[in-house]
């Protein structure tokens, strides 16, 4: 427990976790639609504001888990309620709390039926997402990780598009099937250690076979969530059918849980298996980058296009993680945030077009830039950010990842370059069509430009695009110590193994 900095004062993390839950509970009793909207906005905004002391109080000089709280939960099984944040998770927590009020605002008019239930789902979604990033007990993690499927399923299945039933069930089954072996792995680790405290499980001398099996169980669960090629097939369906807020949450937060899981669990708990299997995962990431790029290039549905681009972008993130050096991992974390910001914003943009034209087809949205200058401006900036234009956030992330990859293996790094080019190709293709179109555009004169509410939704994303793009140092400072500590331990562990191997010979 010495890796925890116990928070003696106000239990900030628990407050963040349980505030949305309590807010959701209130909706049982006051179920008028206008109240539900305002109330949810208020609760999510309060949660976002409550993360500000988290940022200001975060100590960037230590790799320990901060703001930690530990309470007994199930003493018979030594399962405890332990939460804490470190450099790896804090940015994701902040990303989650900041995105939620924007999702509420984006659904203000988009969701017309069963508004209260929708807001209820959003709130319990926030609870489970925050809990996943904060929990330091594996069972607590798993409980929230699985629980999240229910509200997300509901979001897609009730408020989704025409093929919502298919997409939601596919999403549910795919993710559940992925995580059942995770449960078995958790139980196995618990039985080895007698505790479910995650840091206790790290850097233990498990046998090679055990590590490989546990790693594979982890990997299956996380790779489906990321999603890595070839486990990505649920993603386009779910993204396309989900309502805008659902897509944004899915892209910005849920996908990050996969890569977060890899960083938090795969590397420290099964280091030997990580070293052994990293090459395969790296090439799988490259395959995902290239595949995502080519498939996105061929899409005529904007949501599908962005969904496939996510496969490519997340491929960069896994690439960064498994090159196992500081640049790569830091780049991966920054890129996780970037993807959350940029892709979330792009999904919001598509949602705004959809609200106007009731179609996501590129051909229907052609040439709307002329009548929607504000919209076009936002779309251009987010698209540029998506393919890593210098000055925007993704440039920093991708640059670091590719630099890390070069450090690791030049062939590998070179193989990822076409992905960056493809990203430019498909994003520019979309931009060209939506903003300018061809000579025979459909008549778009009836389209109204963005309202103040919509501009207010997109502006925070814009700020972060340029903030991370032009001044990433504050973000890097937050993650640096934790990443350096993780990698030091990882390479220290490897050296110890090598030394042991020499002695044994």
């Amino acid at each position, binding site marked *: 427990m010495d890796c925890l900095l116990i928070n003696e004062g106000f239990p900030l993390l628990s407050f963040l976790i349980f505030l949305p839950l309590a807010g959701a509970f209130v909706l049982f009793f006051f179920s008028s639609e206008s109240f539900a909207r305002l109330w949810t906005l208020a609760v999510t905004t309060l949660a976002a504001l409550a993360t500000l002391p988290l940022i200001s109080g975060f100590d960037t000089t230590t790799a320990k888990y901060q703001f930690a709280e530990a309470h007994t939960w199930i003493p*018979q099984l030594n399962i405890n309620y332990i939460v804490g944040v470190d450099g790896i998770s804090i940015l994701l927590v902040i990303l989650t709390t900041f995105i939620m009020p924007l999702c509420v605002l984006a659904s203000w008019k988009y969701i017309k039926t069963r508004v209260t239930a929708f807001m209820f789902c959003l709130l319990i979604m926030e609870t489970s997402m925050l809990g996943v990033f904060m929990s330091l007990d594996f069972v607590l993690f798993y*409980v929230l990780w*699985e629980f999240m*499927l229910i509200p997300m*399923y509901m979001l897609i299945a009730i408020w989704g598009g025409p093929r919502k039933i298919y997409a939601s069930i596919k999403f549910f*089954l795919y993710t559940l*099937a992925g995580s059942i072996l995770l449960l*078995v792995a958790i139980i196995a680790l618990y039985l080895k250690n007698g505790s479910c405290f995650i840091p206790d499980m790290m850097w233990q001398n498990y046998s090679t076979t055990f590590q490989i099996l546990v790693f594979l169980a982890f990997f299956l669960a996380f790779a489906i969530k990321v999603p890595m090629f070839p486990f990505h097939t649920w993603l386009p369906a779910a993204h396309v059918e989900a309502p805008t807020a659902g897509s944004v949450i899915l892209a910005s937060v849920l996908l990050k849980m996969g890569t977060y899981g890899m960083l938090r669990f795969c590397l420290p708990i099964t280091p030997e298996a990580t070293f052994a299997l990293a090459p395969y995962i790296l090439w799988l990431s490259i395959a995902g980058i290239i595949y995502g790029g080519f498939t996105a290039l061929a899409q005529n549905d904007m949501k599908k296009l962005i969904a496939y681009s996510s496969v490519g972008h997340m491929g960069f993130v896994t690439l960064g993680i498994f090159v196992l050096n500081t640049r790569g991992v830091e780049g991966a974390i920054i890129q996780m945030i970037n993807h959350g910001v940029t892709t979330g914003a792009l999904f919001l943009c598509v949602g705004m077009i959809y609200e106007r034209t009731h179609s996501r087809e590129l051909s229907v949205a052609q040439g709307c830039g002329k009548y929607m200058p504000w919209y076009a401006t936002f779309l251009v900036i987010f698209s540029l950010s998506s393919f890593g234009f210098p000055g925007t956030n993704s440039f920093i992330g991708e640059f670091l990842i590719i630099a890390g990859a070069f450090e690791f293996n030049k062939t590998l790094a070179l193989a990822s370059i076409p992905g960056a080019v493809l990203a430019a190709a498909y994003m520019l293709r979309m931009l060209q069509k939506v903003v300018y179109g061809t000579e025979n555009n459909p008549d778009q004169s009836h389209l109204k430009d963005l309202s103040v509410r919509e501009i207010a939704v997109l502006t925070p994303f814009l700020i972060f695009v340029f903030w991370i793009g032009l001044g990433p140092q504050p973000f890097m400072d937050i993650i640096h110590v934790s990443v350096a500590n993780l990698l030091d331990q990882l390479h220290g562990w490897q050296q110890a193994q090598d030394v042991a191997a020499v002695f044994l010979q």
Partner: protein
Amino acid sequence: MAILPELALIAGALAFFALSLCKTLDSTQVKNSAVLFGFITLISAIISYNQQATMFYGSYEIDMYSQLFKLIIGFALCVVLIFGQNLKGIDESIRPEYYIFLFLSGLGLMMLVSAVELITLFVSLELSSFALYLLVPMRDDRTGVRQQMEAGIKYILFGVLATGFMLFGMSYLFGLTGSTYIKDIVPALESISSQPAVFFAVLMVLGGFFYKLAVFPMHFWVPDIYEGASNETTGFIATVPKLGAVALLIRFMTLPTGQPELLVNLFIVLALCSMFYGNLCALVQKDIKRMLGFSGISHAGFILLGLLTMQAGGYATAIYYITGYVLMNLACFLVISNVSVHGENLKIDDLNGLHKRQPVLAFVLAVSLFALGGIPPMVGFMGKFMLLTGALKLGHLTLVIAAAFNTAIAIYYYLSVVKAAYTADSEERENVEVNSLIKATGVVLVLLILLMGTLPSKFVAIADTAVRTIM
């Protein structure tokens, strides 16, 4: 005082016997007295929870173990009486008789968990079973194909077969040890446990309870009886007798067989067969009661995971799991009984748009189905987690992985019901009217499902202490 809940049930049965003699019946009066006696049973079970006594020449043991089960049985019976108060599937003229047998069946089960002598045990079991055999064909003949008679006959034939096995096993136990008292049988068996007859005797007794619990290969009655019996009766059959079965299985697992490994391996095979058979068959069901029946077979397989650990911890988990299972199933049947307009069987499609027709029931249904599917933080997940932990601790890795896979299979059919209730259009189906007592019961069940799932330690501790009193 110690047998207060049993006395309450007898009083209930007698009261309804008197009512059945009346020439003119007021159906609200019958209904209200049934609910009243349900509450009386529950309250008396709570009052006598801490009692301890040995009665009737040592054949009847009142201890923490039996009282815990009686409390759960009393609660479940009370819930069944509340949500089944309208008894839509039973003709009005025979409702008092229906309640007589329902109370007698509950009485038999309560006696069963206290019985520590083979004959007492057998009599209690038959009291509960025969009452149930009669409840099934009491459904009114709505379909015109006398489906309930078919179900009744199947139930009694399979039931008698299982009883035969058990009685045969008991006769062996008596023959081998010369006693019908479990406390005498245990030491006597230990000295002769190398004999194969001991193993078969115990196995056959266990087989009789497998029938009640619907473990493969004693599960054949399940789908047809679930379908043929009225919704309220199925709600009872699916829940309360299984509590008795688990209570007795645990009692008999403590008998030494001399072949613990063989028994464990057998249990592993039965657990796997139950899980896969139940889940795979449930996938294709259209009728929701049949689906729940098959899902019950797979859940029985999970309970075997707890029993095969042969340790107090595993038994406590099994009790936790069966309690959770009873709560979840009661919640499901609460919804089914009340959505069904005239007491007819429900197809899954009949639940379409339930969220609009009756939001509270839809919520209760969704929570209980996700709980049955083992999604946290509901009781189904916690139970599964503890069962899997217990089994993996003993090194049954393959079994645990297979069980985990079953979770993924099962969620599909539970999800299809949630999908119907929450996403499908109601297609002009009528709204469902239920009274506030039933709604409140549904909410209580949901709260219990969530509470037991999020804070399991208290209950597991109680179950653990209770199990240790009989070991």
